[in-house]
């Protein structure tokens, strides 16, 4: 089967002063896949995502999203990408419905469209909760609202940066079922996580460390190749191998 690469990352580099946060990494993301992006804190995961989504200037290298150059055509790219940041950036003093209105407005959606989205979310979450301030609602729901706002312009490509950090085991699983639904709907998803059991839900994973890719492939193949039973062990080995070399 042929895969179409929806994102091509080529020799991507980010320098902060003399420090290479991301150091000449190249990889592709295939249309319709869930790509798990793993690595220790400070490995360069968020920096990479921010460069791909145009939130951070690229020092050198290139990123093409659906053939469009991030350096030049970011506006067009933004129209079909969604980004959910770490600690999802909803406004705590606004209600869920107000947040939807705000983020809909930012994405340039017409008022009528925004109203439609506000209606849509009432099918998932009770109106009473949607009218409470974000700071007062449970984290599991907060996370659902955050995902919803990131899906508002109906993006083809979705970036989720540590969406399950601080979330309990039940809600983590519910969230992954939602990610799977998005995949079934044809979306391409890049997700970072520190919960290594979740890495096995991805079609492919990339482990990065010190700004370099140290492993990539299908989770089951990687485990088999290194004769390992758990992702924790694989992760540990990849990181220590890299540090001792």
């Amino acid at each position, binding site marked *: 089967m042929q895969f179409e690469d929806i994102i091509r990352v080529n020799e991507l580099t980010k320098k902060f002063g003399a420090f290479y946060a991301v150091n000449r990494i190249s990889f592709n993301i295939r249309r319709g896949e869930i790509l798990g992006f793993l*690595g*220790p*804190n*400070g*490995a360069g995961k968020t920096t990479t995502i921010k460069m791909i989504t145009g939130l951070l200037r690229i020092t050198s290298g290139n990123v093409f999203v659906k053939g469009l150059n991030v350096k030049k055509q970011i506006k067009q790219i933004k129209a079909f990408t969604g980004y959910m940041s*770490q600690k999802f950036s909803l406004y705590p003093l606004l209600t869920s419905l107000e947040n939807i209105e705000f983020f809909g407005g930012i994405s340039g959606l017409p008022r009528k469209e925004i109203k439609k989205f506000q209606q849509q979310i009432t099918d998932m979450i009770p109106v009473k909760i949607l009218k409470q301030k974000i700071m*007062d609602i*449970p*984290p*599991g729901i907060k996370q659902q609202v955050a995902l919803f706002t990131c899906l508002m312009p109906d993006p083809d490509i979705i970036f989720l940066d*540590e969406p399950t*950090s*601080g*979330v*309990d*085991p*039940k*809600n983590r*699983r519910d969230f*992954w*079922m939602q990610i*799977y639904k998005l995949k079934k709907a044809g979306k391409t998803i890049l997700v970072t996580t*520190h*919960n*290594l*059991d979740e890495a*096995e*839900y991805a079609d492919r994973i990339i482990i990065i460390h010190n700004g370099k890719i140290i492993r990539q492939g299908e*989770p*089951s193949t990687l485990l088999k190749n290194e004769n390992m039973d*758990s*992702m*924790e062990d694989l*992760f*540990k080995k990849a*990181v220590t191998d890299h540090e001792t070399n």
Partner: protein
Amino acid sequence: MLELDGLCKSYDSIKAVDNISLSIAPESLTVLAGADGAGKSTLLKIILGLVKKDRGKIYLDQKPIGSDFSKITSITGYMPERFSLYTDLSVEENMNFFSDIQEVPRRRREDLKQRLLEKTGMLPFKKRRAGALSGGMKQKLALSTILLSSPDIIILDEPTTGVDPLSRIEFFNIIEELKEEGKTIIVSTPYLDEAEKGDDIVFIKNGKIIKQGSIQSLKENFPARLFRILPEGNIFKAIESIRADDEITDNVYIRGRYIKYMQSGTAGFIDRIPAKEVKKVSPTLEDIYLYYERNINAV
């Protein structure tokens, strides 16, 4: 050492801490496990007098503290979820600064600083600016600063949230060493794998304790049979089709490449689940959490 009796705290209509009673043994490691917003931080802040409780009593060594929280704070080191370090100062300068604040006697200072940085593995980075440390290292420095006052009780609020798996393991190794030295430690976390290190595990949800006990008693008294199933093909597809069966739907969930099936009653439906491989397994803390969490929802 510490006794909490019927603690309550509400914000408007939300019960952040809802009638929590808990006994914390000296020289033990108590883990409060639950999601963001479960009430863990509020509970810890009530113990320290940082949040005023609505109701309930706190006892220290069997004596009620009343409203005199200094009895607790004077012997406690507290690391909040968002701890503060001076990012422009070096590791060593941060230690000096917090030594001043905590009035560590001058003659003891150098020796103590050296010992603590060694214990947390931060000695090689003594000269590094705190702002240039990785997430896991900042955590270890913050822990070092709160140890300067040589506290008997250590309270750590989600010290490892968002920290990568390897740094988390390292951090918990340090916590275990502190316990061996005789410290009484309370730590909150959303990660149930590291909660396994606790002597006493307390599951918290919606401000309530949903289950507590030693790891051994929780495992021995787990009231269900647990099966680990390797499905054919894609895990999500497999669980979707299994969940179509009403009698099974609430009893299955995913974990890595496996599906887990909890059989609570005598009637088992394991035969109705298509599988490449089935194995009866003993529960992890995550399984135990999911079991009791589910029962709460069912009530």
